[in-house]
């Protein structure tokens, strides 16, 4: 017996990951309404859309900070040293633990395993940008820059 997924238009279904990326850009995460809209547009059952979105770690079905920081703590980064210190430092600087978001909604801190930066450790991603050979000074500067950028943007939107 054919499942729902099989009788539907496979070309539309093949666009699902791309559609989820586009939807996620709007609100920073995939809200139930966003998932519903994607389901409608692609004629894929909502349950299938949610099932697929929840499979992939780059799709967020819960709100995340404006800047998602992912520090690599994979084996090579652990051995090279510095990755754990970087996580400790970020926890201190942002005042949150791994897995948490700052109260202002700016930063979410996560650890991940292997960003293919094993030769250029420590490394982290902030949204889609990759930063390698990090030091606490570099991270300091980056976090301050991002905070400033967000503040300028907020001020611009208010005026």
């Amino acid at each position, binding site marked *: 017996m054919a499942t729902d*997924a099989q009788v539907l238009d*496979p070309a539309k*279904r*093949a*666009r*699902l*990951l*791309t559609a*989820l*990326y586009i939807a996620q850009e709007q609100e920073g995460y995939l809200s139930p309404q966003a998932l519903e809209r994607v389901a409608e547009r692609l004629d*894929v059952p909502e349950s299938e859309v949610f*099932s*697929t979105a929840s*499979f*992939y*770690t*780059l*799709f967020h079905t819960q709100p995340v900070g404006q800047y998602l920081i992912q520090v690599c*703590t*994979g*084996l*090579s980064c*652990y*051995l*090279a040293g510095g990755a754990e210190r970087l996580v400790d430092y970020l926890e201190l600087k942002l005042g949150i633990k791994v897995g948490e978001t700052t109260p202002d909604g700016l930063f979410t801190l996560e650890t991940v*395993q*292997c*960003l*293919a*930066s*094993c*030769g*250029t*450790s420590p490394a982290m*991603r902030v949204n*889609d*940008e*990759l930063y390698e050979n990090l030091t606490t000074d570099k991270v300091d500067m980056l976090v301050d820059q991002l905070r400033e950028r967000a503040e300028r943007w907020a001020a611009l939107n208010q005026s």
Partner: protein
Amino acid sequence: MGSFEPILTRNVGVPNSERIAVYLERGGYSALRKALKMPREELVAIVKDSGLRGRGGAGFPAGLKWGFMPSEPITKYMCVNTDEGEPGTFKDRLLVEHDPHSIIEGVIIAAYAVGAQRAFVYIRGEFFLGVKRWIKAIDEAYRRGFLGKDILGSGFDLDLSVHRGAGAYICGEETALINSLEGKRGEPRMKPPYPAQVGFWDEPTLVHNVETLANVPHIVNRGADWYRSVGTERSTGSKLFCVSGHVRQPGNYELPLGTPLRTIIEEYAGGMRGDRPLKAVIPGGASTPMLTPDQLDIPMDFESLAEAGSMLGTGAIVVMEEGTCMVEVARRLMDFFAHESCGQCTPCRVGTRHLRDILTRIVEGKGELSDLDLLESVCAGIFGNTLCPMGDAAVNPVLSSLKHFRDEYEYHIQHKRCKEAQ
């Protein structure tokens, strides 16, 4: 240091090496011109003769894969696997970012040889620069007439587009990749049927790793005999070895297959970073059983590593010095596998979490001696009992560290702390 002239990385380091003008200036796309004038069977035969084997981890002969594709002119697809995620591996990223056209040229030749007219790049969602480089390079190739309709007047059509994964290690497995490309959860399919029979949208599909494809233009240009002159008798050609961990100069080193592990670590990666001697090496990425200092003279090729009870895998060499806690190493790798298990097969889904929990309690000094038997028994429950090779891969770090460093596990349990932390 030897005088090996790089093949795959010959353009790395050349300014703007990712641009088509630079690639053409350096002889790029000449293999494609040659290939499009050759009968398809001849191309398949050359790749078979070259002995080229897959560089994504499994090492399957590329020519055989091409030969498995049906020869009738029916709808066929091709996928370029850029889902590099095996901990310790950073070679495909290098090729995509610095020499995407060498891969595209390989894709067009392979697609022509097997008669596929639609090809997809599947790239790991985290590789944002890679996505940009792929898109730009493909656009350049279209403008120059290397992609699209009637490529270089040959009558052969090929379209190539980029598809972004979204964070799932398992999508590097070819059938999981195909499911993901179809917009589904990246869960591996039962094999057989293999993708060469039933692949993307149930049509015959050829899936190759980036590094494998980058070899193809060189084989076409210089011939199978030349290719076989590099490497060993059964492991032909060169390989990108990614060296990381406790070495002075971590990085990518392209060398002939069969180069001794010791040479790669000591002469290329600069040796150990400090005074501590080497304790263990993972030779081919997180999934491959670790080796010990007495095995350093092993030639890095498919056969020698298999004989030593390990695998060449992706060629990702992770070096560990004395003082490294091997239980923590196993725990960290298991954390990865437990997180990345797709959840489809119970032994892998439940087993990897069990292993992670047991390893965690041993690291934290809460383990018991019976836990060691338990680890082995859980591993036996996973090994050989899953749809895809990930189950087998996940038990390797545990079993190999237990085999070589059982005393360290016991010390952890008996003294509630690490032997190495004295």
